[in-house]
């Protein structure tokens, strides 16, 4: 794994701290990140909804936030 870039920043009290610097590539992207196209068919889309967007679409989860109407 590439080494993390560290940069120095001043905290509000003036103390200098080292923090992780930017991890993105330099320059300007020529196209957007079309992440939603990664789910290609209905099965994948539903699976993502139930897992990735589990806060609303999980069958029997999320913790105390259990969905009342089953998906």
């Amino acid at each position, binding site marked *: 794994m590439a080494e993390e870039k560290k940069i120095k920043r001043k905290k509000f009290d003036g103390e200098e701290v080292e*923090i992780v610097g930017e991890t993105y590539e330099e320059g300007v992207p020529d196209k*957007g990140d079309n992440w*939603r196209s990664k789910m290609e068919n209905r099965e994948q889309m539903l699976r993502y909804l139930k*897992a990735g967007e589990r806060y609303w679409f999980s069958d029997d989860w999320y913790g105390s936030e259990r969905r009342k*109407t089953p998906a």
Partner: protein
Amino acid sequence: MPDEKKTKKEEIPRSVDPASLEVLAECTDLQPIGTSWDRLKKQHPQCGFGLKGLCCRHCSMGPCRVDASKEKLKYGVCGVDSDTVAARHFVRMIAAGAAAHSDHGRGVAETFLAAAKGEAKDYKIKDQQKLYGLAMDFGVEIGDRAVEDIAIEVGEKSLGIFGEQHGPIPFLKRAPLKRQALWKEHNMEPRGVDREIVECMHRTHMGVDQDPENLMMQGNRAALADGWGGSMLATELQDIMFGTPQPILGECNLGVLKDDEVNVVIHGHEPTLSEMVMVVCQSPEMIAKAKAVGAKGINLGGLCCSANEILMRHGVANIGNFLQQELALATGAVDVMTVDVQCIMSSLAQIASCFHTKFITTNYRAKIKGAQHIQFEEHDAENIARQIVQMGIDNYKNRGVTKIPKAKCNMIAGFSHETINYLLGGVYRSSYKPLNENIINGRIRGIAGVVGCNNPKVTHDKDHIALVKELIANNVIVLQTGCSALACAKEGLMLPEAASQFAGPGLAEVCETVGIPPVLHMGSCVDNSRILMAASAVVKEGGLGDDICDLPAVGAAPEWMSEKAISIGQYFVASGVYTLLGTTFPTLGAEGFTDFLFNKHEKLTGGMWGFEPDPMVMARKMIEAMDGKRRALGLDKGKERVLFDMAMRRELDAG
């Protein structure tokens, strides 16, 4: 309570935006109508009763000026007191704002249903995944059914929600369970927004509801029917038809207008027309036509929320926010401007007539004297869009001298709540957990939603930018929509590098690790519903309480002007969020009612209003509120920044 009068100055700078100032310096020849700044000056002094919410003209025994502090004016002719006058006025503002968002949502639902049925051939289902999510919300069977069948049923159910007479609207189920229980306990669960708005109008009619707190119960219901109903439906259905926003690069400010291309400008709110205009502007056939008249191409730009809609989905250039609509015309470079609904100044037709610009209204709900009207029909969308773009191309040759400022700025838009979830964990680990963890460990102090309009009563963009810079410097991540988002975009705050330039070390570290700006563009004004969803996800993720009112999260609209801002603010307050307005607050003359909104309301919903015209003091109030929530959650162990008060700041300035 801050005194609004003390903040008024005779002459304040009109804008902090160099592009706007450049055009303002040049446009001295827009008489007799001038700009909004000129007209505001002519309106001074404005009616003191109106400013404080103490003027009533709900019946012909009035108009009455009702002021508790003046013996003679304590009661209106009907016997009403100042608190009830202000409350009725406030509830009517909520109703008007909710109506604007929700009628927009209804229009989208109608187009959606027509598209699903194949009756609006130019529109498609672009985001099937989001359609399935909505189907689950509405209990629509998915199985192996054709996408169109699911969409028709979702479209019909969506339209039905607007007129829902009895049960609570379905999206309330998206809120944290504790919030749902609170709404139920207070009988605050809204029915369809149509019904809630009608009830607002009934109850604020002369001689009906005369208890300010009881009136606000209805105000809360109507606002919730907007935020978790009409607005949320607009957002969801637009995403299904046009795509869920994902990070995308765009440009903003008046400098995006081009001297050597046909400038087509769309202004307003509904993306149904602007999406089609964009498709047409990109068609090789129309580009060839533009070249045939001597232009290098077609340059499409947007203003206000029309701009936000196509910016966040396609990266289309953004000319500016609310107070820049007249300035865009004053550059003399706009060949055609088309408008639909909301936030469109009446002056535009007259200003356009000072130049060669064709000015077109497109919605039967919003005609303007002096404009050419071309009714937009979703069944013939592309043809109508082509007609409009063609008018711009034909008009290019009539252009006179242009004064396009150079200033423009790159920005990243497209942070829907789904995209934030994805960015924090990827496809396989999408989660709000990293955000929650960084709030818990103190790198991020809290979340602020900074939204709303511009208002010529305060220096254009100044308060948005000052507030947001102060918040991010204090490690508060900022979520933005509408004209407020555009103000900060012009300042470069919506670029990843803004994290290292402007954010406190904790927030900067998180932003640089994830690769996001410290200020996230979440969309147009109806997309404030995305902020409700993000807040609900943060609660549901866990570790930060079990209701929205437990979160270190605060809302603000520092330069607000429209009734929509009141409806938005009220649905945040009703959802448990402390929400501050800048510039002015419409009930300040009614002490009892204002005290209810600013204090007692918190006992009801966990959220309350506040007013603060100074953006630095506003930031301090917001951060103090977040720190209070952190303390309540037991997260106050970390070292906190000493907040500078005004005296300390003045000392620094003097130094």
